[in-house]
Structures are given as structure tokens and as C-alpha cells.
């Protein structure tokens, strides 16, 4: 029994390395399909709609809510030291540096990433990908590449919207509910958030997360089992693996960026 579980563990580790390699090679294929003609702008626009526009509601609503909560909590913590005017700096820095990119990536993974995987996996199950190959259309060029590119392009935009809505939520809570001066909120925000250090780092994170989630979601859809159980396994796996990877890579980027 014990030897069996060690064999299983060994198998899982080797499997992980295999999938990592396969995903990298898949990524190169997607990259090649993206940059070589024929450039499919119509498809890209459709995918940006599916990934970006349809995620607007969740990103903006969550942004405002997270900003409001963060504003309230920081006020309760800072008011003990008489430093409640720094609330703008606290909310701004935490949103821009960490919460903005990570939250946006997690929300978009849950909404658009799972939809992407499910769509591609069910296309594989219903043999639509094979149908495309029959018509001499590369499914990676026609289906995968626009989806992955859309995710890459949309993530920084949604990141910016999330952070903006969060700052707005914190501002409203601060001025209307807690009686903080709006001017000092904005001043402390603007003097402490630096473009070179913070904003650029935030968008680099968003771009990296966008590539990761785009590749992961499309890869899992493309390599799923062509059964209905396979579709659901691929979809849930995408959300789980992408969420954990986002948090791990977030630490790595933060550590590298800080030095």
C-alpha cells in the first residue's frame, strides 16, 4: 500500500513536469500563430468582447467593494495614531502594488478563464476542432491564438479599471462616511504612489498574469478528454491551477521587482 502511494506521488511529479513542458511548447505554437499572417482581427475583437466587456461588471463591482472595505479597515487602524489622513496612501499603494493585479487576475480567471477552457474543451468533444483541421484551418490560429491574445491585452485594462474603482470606493467611504478630507486623501495618494516603481510594476504583473491565465486556460481546453466529464475536469482544474499559480508568481515578481 505504502509503495503504491509513493509511486503515485512520483507519477504526479513527473506528470507535472511533462505538462509544464507541453504547455511551454504549446505557448510557442500560439506565439507563432499570433505573429504570422493571417492576422485575424475580427476574431480578436470578438474574443476581447467575451473576455473583457463581459467581465466588466464583476471587475468594477468587486473593485468598488474592495476599495470601500479597505478604506474602512485602514481608517479603523490608522485613527489610533491620528494618521487617518494617510488613508489615501495606504489604499492606493496596496491596490496598485498587490491587490489590483492579483484580484483582477483571480476574478478574470474565474469568469473568463473557465469559460475559455469550457468552450475549447467542448469544441474538442464535439469534433469542431477536427472539422477545422479538415478545412485546412489551423485551430490554434483560428481559435486558441485570438483567445490567448485577448486575455493578454485585456488584463492590464481590467487591472486599471479595478484599481480606479477601488480608489473611488475608498474615496466615497472616506469622505461620505468617515469624514476624511477629500483633498488630503487625494494628496496622500498622489504623493506616495510613484509611476516608475508602482504603476509600471502593477502593469507588468497584469501582463504576466494575463499570459499565464490565457495559456493555461487554452492549453487545458485543448488537451482535455473529449468527454463531458473531461470538459468539467478541465474547467475546474483551470480555475484551481491558475489561481494558485497567480499567487505564487505574484510573490516571485514582487521579490524580483523590489530588487
Amino acid at each position, binding site marked *: 500500500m505504502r509503495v503504491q502511494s509513493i509511486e503515485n506521488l512520483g507519477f504526479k511529479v513527473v506528470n507535472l513536469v511533462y505538462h509544464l513542458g507541453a504547455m511551454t511548447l504549446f505557448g510557442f505554437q500560439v506565439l507563432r500563430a499570433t505573429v504570422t499572417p493571417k492576422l485575424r482581427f475580427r476574431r480578436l475583437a470578438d474574443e*476581447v*468582447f467575451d473576455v*473583457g466587456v463581459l467581465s466588466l461588471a464583476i471587475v468594477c463591482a468587486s473593485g468598488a467593494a474592495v476599495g470601500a472595505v479597505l478604506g474602512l479597515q485602514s481608517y479603523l487602524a490608522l485613527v489610533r495614531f491620528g494618521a487617518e489622513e494617510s488613508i489615501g496612501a495606504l489604499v492606493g499603494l496596496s491596490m496598485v502594488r498587490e491587490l489590483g493585479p492579483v484580484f483582477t487576475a483571480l476574478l478574470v480567471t474565474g469568469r473568463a478563464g473557465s469559460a475559455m477552457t469550457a468552450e475549447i474543451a467542448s469544441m474538442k468533444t464535439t469534433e469542431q476542432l477536427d472539422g477545422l483541421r479538415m478545412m485546412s484551418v489551423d485551430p490554434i490560429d483560428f481559435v486558441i491564438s485570438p483567445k490567448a491574445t485577448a486575455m493578454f491585452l485585456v488584463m492590464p485594462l481590467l487591472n486599471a*479599471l479595478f484599481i480606479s474603482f477601488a480608489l473611488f470606493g475608498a474615496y466615497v467611504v472616506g469622505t461620505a462616511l468617515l469624514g476624511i478630507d477629500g483633498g488630503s486623501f487625494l494628496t496622500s495618494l498622489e*504623493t506616495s*504612489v510613484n509611476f516608475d516603481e508602482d*504603476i509600471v510594476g502593477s502593469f507588468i504583473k497584469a501582463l504576466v498574469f494575463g499570459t499565464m491565465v490565457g495559456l493555461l486556460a487554452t492549453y487545458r481546453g485543448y488537451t482535455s478528454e473529449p468527454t463531458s466529464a473531461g470538459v468539467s475536469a478541465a474547467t475546474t482544474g483551470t480555475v484551481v491551477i491558475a489561481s494558485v499559480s497567480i499567487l505564487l508568481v505574484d510573490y516571485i515578481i514582487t521579490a524580483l521587482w523590489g530588487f
Partner: protein
Amino acid sequence: MKVSPVRDLAVGLFVLVGLGAVAYLSLSVGGLSYKGPGGLRLYASFDEIGGLKPRAPVSISGVKVGQVESVELDEFLRARVAMDIDQKIELPIDSSAAIRTAGLLGDQFVAVEPGAEEQVMTSGEEFSFTENALSIERLIGKFVNDAGLDEK
């Protein structure tokens, strides 16, 4: 896949709004400015600058008129602070620059007090009178020393 003008409009609007948010964050919050080389550049040398950092505000009578550009050591090992000030401001050449703290826990900033001369400072000139940053530890040490001497 139906070609719908409404869809395309939605995508275009979304990208516009997203880029607008990026621009707002970069310019307004992040402080990236396309203010060209039109600012008034002035220098001041201090013995002690405390916690003064680049992008700290420079104010006259409490009104922000510019920001600290850089802080370096000059050949006498004093701190030389370069400031970018609004070009429209006319500062007499006997104006002074002091480093003050905004509130108890606040950041350091440079407070400029205008002088009384007629001649104004031009870009590249240095402040003749400066006031160093107050160091709380030195004040406390001085107080303790003086109090100790009084007791004897």
C-alpha cells in the same frame, strides 16, 4: 459568429475606458508628467535633510509650487537638493529654503520664504539662506543634556 456593430462598439468603448483608467493612474495618481523642461530649477545646500525624498513638495506660504527633483552630495559633502518650481513664480534672490515636517507623522517638504530684494532668481541659481531639518533625537539629547547640567 454574427457580425454586430453593437459588439464592436462595446469592444471599442471598453478599450477606450480601460486606456483612460491607465492614463488616469499613470498621470494623476502616479505622477508621471509631461511637463516639459519649462520649470524653474533651483538648488539649495543643507547640512541635514532628514527624510526629504525626491518628489517631496516645495511650497511657498503653504501653497505647493513645485517638487524636489533630486538629492545629492556636493564636493563639501553637504546635501544639495535640486527643485523644480513653477516658472511663473518670481522669487527674490534673498529668499530662504527650510525643511519642515507636515504634521507630527507627516513627510518632509521644503518651505520657501520669499525675501525682500527686487532682483529675482533665475533657473540654475542657488538659495543663499537655508535652514536644516530638525532632528527630534538631537533636540531630545540637547534637552536631556541641558536638564542634566542644570541639576548639577
